[in-house]
């Protein structure tokens, strides 16, 4: 159940972490409308998964379903490919999270000391630190991981409300509705606006990508 709740609440933090991608390409309207479109299309995938999961509620998710559903002659090879994609995706997701964490930590440092300039290599070194700390926690404190994730789940829901209420209440120069839903931006350096939309989509694709990762506590 924790895995399930986790995927609900990570959408907004994921979107917040990669906001820089969307702002430069297409701006608010592309992100808002592409979010809705991506969610609608993701539902097609989610309903397909629901059918498979109901029939075969097994560990390994997609990796196992491919082995079960494929024509027997190709099942092993296709499961192999799926397994590699899954492993790459989940490990790279950790790397993305390290980047987001490192960006936030250095961003707070810059906010409080405006004379400090963030360099790319600072950012990379902080991601290394995060990866190593996470590894040490997993090796030495693995028995506490579930409690930690339950605690942070409550923290996450609290943060969602605090962040949204604070910025909406404190901001006294809000943008117009046409700015949020209509004005197109293109700062990508490509002259074509189609290109900007294609790049802006990346943020929505990323925000809505963990719904298939349900196997840990749900099954």
């Amino acid at each position, binding site marked *: 159940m924790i895995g399930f709740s986790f995927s609900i609440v990570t959408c907004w933090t994921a979107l917040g972490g990669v906001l820089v991608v969307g702002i430069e390409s297409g701006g608010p309207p592309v992100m808002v409308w592409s979010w809705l479109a991506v*969610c609608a299309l993701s539902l097609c995938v989610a309903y397909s998964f629901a059918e498979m999961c109901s029939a075969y509620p097994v560990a390994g998710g997609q990796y196992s379903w491919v082995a079960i559903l494929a024509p027997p002659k190709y099942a092993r090879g296709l499961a192999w490919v799926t397994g590699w994609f899954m492993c790459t995706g989940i490990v790279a997701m950790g790397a993305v999270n390290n980047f987001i964490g490192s960006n936030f930590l250095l961003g707070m440092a810059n906010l409080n000391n405006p004379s400090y300039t963030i360099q790319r290599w600072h950012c990379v070194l902080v991601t290394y630190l995060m990866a190593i700390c996470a590894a040490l926690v997993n090796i030495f404190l693995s028995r506490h991981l579930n409690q930690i994730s339950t605690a942070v789940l409550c923290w996450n829901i609290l943060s969602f409300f605090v962040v949204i209420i604070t910025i909406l209440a404190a901001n006294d120069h809000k943008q117009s509705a046409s700015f949020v839903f209509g004005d197109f931006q293109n700062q990508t350096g490509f002259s074509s606006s189609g290109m900007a939309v294609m790049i802006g989509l990346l943020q929505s694709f990323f925000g809505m990508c963990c719904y298939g990762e349900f196997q840990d506590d749900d099954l």
Partner: protein
Amino acid sequence: MGLLLWRSMIQIPVPRLTSESREMLNPSKEAPLAIIMSVYLGAITGFIFLISVFFCIGDLEATATTPTGVPLIQIFYDSTGSVGGATTLAAMISIIVLVCANSLMAEGSRALWAFARDHGLPFSRFFSRVDKRSQVPIYAIVLCTVIQMALNSIYFASYEGFSTVISIATFGFYLSYGMPLLVRLWSRFTGHAKEMPGSYSLGKWGPLLNFIGLLYLIFAGIDFNFPQIGPVTANNMNYCSAAFGIIGLISLVTWIFDGRKNFTGPQTGVVNAVEADTQGLPVVTGPRASVGGGEKDVEKEINATEG
């Protein structure tokens, strides 16, 4: 215990009856709902968040090029007008992200460990080892850490390192999501399609939803390999395709020299006696007795793929 974490990968009926798993007693009914609900709820919370942030955003150009490097922190600062307020909000999110790093490390290393157990990785025997005393797959954790650090290092090479790694992660996820949809449609086409024994069925809408979902995932997959900023140079290139080229090559070489012979496929439903033994759980070797529908089909299929 670390045991709790590996529970689902090992798939023994016994732990399902212990207290922590009572909340979801019928996975074939409730897990499908969980998948669908997580999309709906994620969509709604994400939408609320995006709208709120965009109503509060200041000058777009200034926010995108903020010296903090994080547009969201700039938006917090513009909205609250105080460094302390913005730092507090940013710190709340940072805590989530820092804890997430542990969960993602657990997920990543567990996926690698389980795949190594099926002989899916190079040096599988090594990476599938579990520390006897602590029940932790230390080598898989170290492997996961090293790959994460390597991916983070792309930022040294390219300004677009951050969005490249986002592309790699999402590309990997989307292709692994696309595979079961492709396989399902393919099986219908070749006549290998199985009756889906589950209680949740899409009926005649199944093929259509599979097809739309697959098209969408393929479109997204192509999109991830687009350059992020023009004009394209080596400094700002999207290394997603290059990264997948390297991963594909490693995968192919491993398949030719090892996987073709030794890869077992997913071992769902079959309990490895040694693992069960080290955890003090009863060894179950036959088909699983109770949980959900369609277990027996799984069992047969796994045996078929192994043979």
